[in-house]
């Protein structure tokens, strides 16, 4: 009892409840669900990559023998990195603003952040196509204003994919980052200022370092999403914007090559895990 109280001093609302035997059973329904629809299928898929159509490593040999697959992987990684950095760069000021805005304003702004979730990513991506297309709103406006004389091609560029992904993923960054930034003690910033730090130094020496764990948390979520992103690159991207997720899709749907699809999936999973671990180590370094 005493130990539980000490251990849970800050986080647990009721330590005595948490130490009651069998309380862990509360997690059981979720664990069963996860096992049924996540762990087992993924395990089966991983197994497929070694057994389909025959047992052996031939699917992985194929991965290495044809450079195109690793190229796609590298391109996907680059896309994820660019989008993550851009999302963090544009989301950080917004998250900061939310922490200093008046509470009523902050509540409304956070509500607005959730609005995009009302429509699925597919719908939002199609909406972007409507806006960016040859006869779309943007071209119409530019033509009307006389800035261009012929409709410009906005779709099927890598940059378009990146901008669209930033727009779609921004809430996933801003919300955790805001949560973390809120916990930064304002008196630290005042203390720094009083000790002679001009605003820029207060930001660089105090606010930014203390923000990093929150920024990394948001960035991690965005990065993981990006790495498996499928719909937006498919619809908005050009022929060069093939991602690893699109290749996997093609194996399962087009080629009906489950073994190779499974091998690509395993590769994606491994790379995502590696990315997550690398980022966690980075965070650990800064948080100390």
């Amino acid at each position: 009892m005493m130990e539980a109280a000490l251990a849970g001093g800050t986080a647990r609302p009721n330590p005595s409840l948490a130490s009651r035997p069998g309380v862990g059973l509360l997690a059981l329904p979720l664990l069963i669900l996860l096992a049924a629809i996540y762990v087992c299928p993924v395990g089966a898929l991983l197994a497929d990559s070694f057994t389909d159509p025959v047992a052996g490593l031939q699917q992985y040999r194929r991965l290495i023998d044809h450079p195109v697959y690793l190229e796609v992987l590298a391109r996907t990684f680059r896309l994820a990195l660019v989008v993550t950095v851009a999302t963090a760069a544009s989301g950080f000021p917004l998250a900061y603003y939310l922490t200093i805005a008046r509470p009523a304003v902050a509540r409304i702004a956070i509500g607005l952040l959730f609005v995009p979730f009302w429509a699925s990513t597919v719908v939002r991506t199609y909406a972007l196509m409507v806006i960016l297309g040859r006869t779309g709103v943007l071209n119409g406006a530019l033509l009307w204003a006389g800035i261009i004389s012929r409709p410009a091609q906005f779709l099927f560029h890598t940059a378009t994919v990146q901008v669209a992904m930033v727009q779609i993923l921004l809430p996933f960054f801003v919300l955790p980052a805001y949560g973390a930034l809120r916990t930064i003690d304002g008196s630290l910033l005042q203390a720094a200022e009083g000790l002679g730090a001009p605003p820029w130094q207060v930001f660089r020496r105090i606010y930014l370092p203390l923000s990093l764990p929150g920024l990394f948390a948001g960035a991690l979520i965005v990065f993981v999403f990006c790495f498996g992103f499928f719909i937006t690159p498919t619809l908005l991207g050009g022929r060069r914007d093939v991602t690893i997720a699109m290749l996997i899709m093609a194996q399962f749907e087009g080629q009906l090559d489950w073994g190779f699809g499974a091998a690509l999936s395993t590769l994606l999973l491994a790379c995502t895990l590696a990315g997550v671990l690398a980022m966690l180590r980075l965070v650990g370094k800064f948080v100390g």
Partner: protein
Amino acid sequence: MDMTAGMGAAGAGLHAAPASHGASLALDQVSRVYPNGTHAVRALSVSVPAGRILSLLGPSGSGKTTTLKMIAGFDRPDSGSITLAGRDISRTPPHARNIGMVFQNYALFPHMTVFDNVAFPLRMRGWARRDIESAVQQALALVHLEAVAARLPRQLSGGQQQRVALARAIVFRPKLLLMDEPLGALDRQLRKSVQSELKRLQRQLDLTIVYVTHDQEEAMFLSDEIAIVQGGRIVQCGPPAVLYDAPGSHFVAGFLGESNFLGGTVAEAAQGQMLVTLPGGRQLQGRPSEPMSAGHAVSVLIRPEKLQVHAASGGSLPGANLLLGRIDLVNFLGGAIEYEIDLNGARLTARVYLRGAATAFAIGDPVVLHMAPEDCLVFPAP
């Protein structure tokens, strides 16, 4: 700019001749109205000579912290001026004011070691690495924390954190040191020793300090002057002894030190003297705090240590200002005994310091209380 350069040159060490570096501070008619209409500070004027400690003492919400924030530059007065070392700093940004501040929660940078925390103000001033090294070492030595320079704040005890905050606030030899209830989080015993330490440092470094507290004992212990703040105004300002012996109002009397109040009405008023009739009909001679005429409702202040307790059967007693009572409670305080005395419904506390074989009274004993007229201060009833 020239200031920064000067500080760099002077950074050689705190042990150098303690050239007077605390500056004088003056607030003139400073007011602050919050956007919601609250008058946090109203036309407040106060000054601190160089090298002195001024305490702003008042209940929470009295405006003392707002005043401190305006001195530091974290809040701006709506009117009035703040002058440090003869220069109006009301519009100077906080980072250019050269004022050290110790926050209530210490505000140590959690991602920096103790050394880096203390070095921070020096780095911001562009000191050379070697000078920073020695100045930080000396500042940590002043607060006896050389051994923990490499630790992070969260690895320190509350008392140690408090001392790091102090070292950080004085390492750059500020013109003024502001302290916002800095000892509030420490336990009583530790607080006592930190207070003495602070006084010693203040003298040694010739610091000018503005100290915000709601703890009257702390204010009396530390201060050269105390300003009692209430409702955004200073109701009285002066040396602790003056405030204690000659409080200007009922509020100040009640706020500073322990006090007994007896209600009554003025029977006779003469120059510098007053005769007060108590509810039971007995009369008490006292010293009026302001002119009042007969019939005025008043409150008589008597400090517990000014009450003399005699056995009811005792022999010769001075004639005037005697009250009969009964011991209701006896509290032993170590060096003194506190008697709570029932006085026909009114209650008084008397503190008797024990010297040799003093008579001790027991609960229920009838006693005679005597108080000198000059120890009975008469205020208009609040």
